[in-house]
């Protein structure tokens, strides 16, 4: 007993040294790790966190670029937020969505999302399913060619589609005309309130290559045993899709859905270029983020622009949190289920 203790005591200094050595090692590891992270840590502070806080701060001031940089801004409390609540153009109050004469930019964004979001998920998914079909020959070539429009410069793709959808010379209307649509009924596409959203959606479908590739990779990652088992059980292809394929690729769908929703609320470049950011036709393309952009860059109202921006951020945050909360009911994480 005593002897045992003695050996232990004799060993103590060396084990203490090991602990100390390990501590210095892990401290060194931490120092090294943080050193390597430092470019991002600094960049995150300088270009994300600080600007975010500054945006919040600006939203409580009355700051305009036109006032000049030497003017001292006044603290105005929640005035900008009160203005936001009563601003028909921002239109954040659902009670006024259908009574206000000025179209609500938030409602416009949501309306467009109701068309664009399902298409943004199901078209790439459908295409990925086609690509993954075992009967398809030349999958690799098709995959690349469907992806390709995604890398066409934004401005160029807008001009391509602007030409395709030109109401007089565009190919789409030529096809419609040859199918028997009378000349006076040919759509005006981006220049008509009724067709401007479908026009944007068509332009957007061109960029689904990325989502398609990601979904295709998800489909290819589904273990074939599962399909074999379903076959043994006599499941038809519809049941197989909903009981095996969909759950297995639901993380990928979830990721794309979140990205698409974040993208939806930031949507403004297309209306800016296609309809020159004026909201034409009939104010239908004054999207929320376009309104924000104009408030800052055109009307130079920094504080109100910041207020619009923080509201946008909160909306996106809320939706993302809600989505993540619902995820456990329909998103299946194979790795977690296994452990």
């Amino acid at each position: 007993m005593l002897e045992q203790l003695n050996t232990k005591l004799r060993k103590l200094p060396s084990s203490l040294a090991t602990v100390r050595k390990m501590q210095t090692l892990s401290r060194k590891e931490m120092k090294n790790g943080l050193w390597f992270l430092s470019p991002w840590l600094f960049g995150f502070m300088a270009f994300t966190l600080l600007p975010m806080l500054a945006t919040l701060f600006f939203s409580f001031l009355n700051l305009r670029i036109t006032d000049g940089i030497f003017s001292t801004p006044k603290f105005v409390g929640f005035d900008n937020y009160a203005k936001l609540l009563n601003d028909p153009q921002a239109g954040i109050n659902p009670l006024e969505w259908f009574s206000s004469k000025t179209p609500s930019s938030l409602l416009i964004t949501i309306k467009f999302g109701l068309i664009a979001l399902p298409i943004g998920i199901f078209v790439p998914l459908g295409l990925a399913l086609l690509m993954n079909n075992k009967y398809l020959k030349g999958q690799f070539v098709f995959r690349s060619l469907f992806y390709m429009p995604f890398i066409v410069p934004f401005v160029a793709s807008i001009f391509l589609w602007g030409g395709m959808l030109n109401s007089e010379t565009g190919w789409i209307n030529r096809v419609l005309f040859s199918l028997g649509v009378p000349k006076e009924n040919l759509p005006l596409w981006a220049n008509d309130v009724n067709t401007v959203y479908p026009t944007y959606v068509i332009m957007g479908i061109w960029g689904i290559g990325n989502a398609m590739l990601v979904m295709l990779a998800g489909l290819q990652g589904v273990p074939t045993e599962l399909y074999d088992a379903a076959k043994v059980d006599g499941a038809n292809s519809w049941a197989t899709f909903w009981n095996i394929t969909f759950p297995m690729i639901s993380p990928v769908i979830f990721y794309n859905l979140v990205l698409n929703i974040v993208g939806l609320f930031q949507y403004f470049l297309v209306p800016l270029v296609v309809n020159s950011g004026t909201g034409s036709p009939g104010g239908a393309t004054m999207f929320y983020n376009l309104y924000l952009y104009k408030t800052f860059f055109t009307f130079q109202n920094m504080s109100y622009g910041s207020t619009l921006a923080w509201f946008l951020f909160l909306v996106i945050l809320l939706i993302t949190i809600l989505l993540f909360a619902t995820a456990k009911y329909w998103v299946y994480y194979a790795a977690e289920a296994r452990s």
Partner: protein
Amino acid sequence: MNKKLTDGINTTFITLVVLSLLVIFLSPFAFMMVTSLKTREQISVVGAPIWPAAQPKYTYQGKEVDVYTVPLKQCAGFDTNGNATKNLAITKKGRQESTFVDPNDLGRGEFVCQVSWRALDRPWIFSPTWQNYVEVWNTIPNGYWRILGNTTFYAVVTMIGTVISCILVAYGFARFRFPGRDFLFIVLISTIFLPGAVTIIPTYSFWQKLGLVGTWYPLIVPHFFANAYNVFLFRQYFMTLPRELDESAMMDGAGPLKILWSIILPQSYPVIIAVVVFHIVFAWNDYFGPLVYLSTAKQNWPVSVALSFYNGIYGSQPQLIQAGAMMALLLPVILFFVAQRFFVQGIVVTGVEK
């Protein structure tokens, strides 16, 4: 039916369906190419063919004359019952009768046909013109060389910044353990979902106060501080590399930078190529950044901004706009086809693993 036959039918059916979808999907490219090869005259003619074409002219006795499609039965010396038509050069226009020569049969000389020249159609022959490309090249703001140079400068400098900073940060996340690392990684990933609107106003005002709006700094500097997508790509890749080599190098006294440089990077060329290509395509296509910071500085316009201003001036001439679009998309598309393998892998890693 035997299995081979049904398989064959299925293959043909599916492949045909996908092929026709693809043709529709890519038809804007065809539109662009075809339009960019048309002459301005053809664009303005109602009922002109959709392929690049011109109405031929013929030089007869030193004079340039138009060519018309004439029904031969109306002409002297031809079969009066046939339905044949021929493209003939008109030498004398008349309401009741006109005089023609056949460019392919000059020996016949001039002959009279009982037609009004106004009732005749002029034929179109396939004749693409490259003139639009030349015109865009010369008339785009600053000239094309300059905007190509600007875009290349922007793409290359920011590519260097992105690759270096993202490799360092990803190495930090992949190879070092310390408290708070996983939290920081979640923060990094969540910046993917952060709306740019919530940072742009102070950021822009900051650069404006420094007097740097209109210069390259606001566009270039942030790329030297890493971004979530590329850090994620590098990190995922680094984590698949075995640690044994690192550890044995560490035993030999190599420091972390040395290990990164001589052990990790030599094994990482596929992901480095993927990031380089992604970034070049991103920078080439970037429109919002240059629009915001450079619209007042014409000398610095990259291709995307120059093209959009060009559209403001020449918007009514689709043949020029389409030629300009073609010139803008050529490089990214070529790059994509050359580096396809790396491209696809990179997308799959960021999208599926998240």
